[in-house]
């Protein structure tokens, strides 16, 4: 069974304090790994898709990386507006349709 485990469950940072979120996954044939951001009372918002080990993608203060067993979301010099829950999800190659298996997320709080 495909599984996604995210750590830590919650992370508090001071503004400007860089850190990383972890997403460990088990999937039989990875097609893609997705990162989403979810604000309270809102639906998840797409950030990145990674397909193969060694791949990296960046967007503003966020950089996502992928290995064969895990993905990291690096946050450089975060700002309070980066506070949100960050969700990781995997899609297996065998699955028909766009089925994603999500982790429970990491709640990030950035204080000014």
């Amino acid at each position, binding site marked *: 069974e495909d599984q996604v485990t995210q750590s830590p469950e919650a992370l508090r940072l001071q503004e400007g304090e860089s850190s990383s979120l972890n997403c460990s996954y088990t999937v039989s044939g990875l097609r893609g790994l997705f990162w989403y951001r979810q604000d309270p009372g809102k639906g998840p918002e797409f950030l990145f898709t990674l397909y193969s080990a060694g791949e990296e993608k960046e967007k503003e203060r966020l950089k996502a990386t992928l290995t064969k067993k895990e993905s990291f979301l690096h946050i450089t010099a975060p700002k309070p507006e980066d506070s949100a829950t960050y969700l990781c999800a995997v899609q297996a190659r065998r699955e028909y349709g766009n089925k994603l298996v999500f982790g*429970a997320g990491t709640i990030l709080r950035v204080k000014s």
Partner: protein
Amino acid sequence: DTAVSQTPKYLVTQMGNDKSIKCEQNLGHDTMYWYKQDSKKFLKIMFSYNNKELIINETVPNRFSPKSPDKAHLNLHINSLELGDSAVYFCASSPLDRDSPLHFGNGTRLTVT
């Protein structure tokens, strides 16, 4: 312009009732989904429709019945509601391409008392 919209945003009802949640997308996508987010925050897929055809049907009680009148709409009807059905239900859409990211609505918080 709201891309994926769900109604209602909040739904409070009693056990045994029947209720529906509506979803509409104006992105021109072929595929729509229902996901359930439980109290532990896990998002789990329930159903997926492509051009009104059911393509994903996870292990969901048959009290839950999706209906897609056209490719821009996917409604979720729930019969005989139970306490355990309390959760946030998210509608999403995407192009059929399996690599395409999902676009989510803002959810419907269902509370069964």
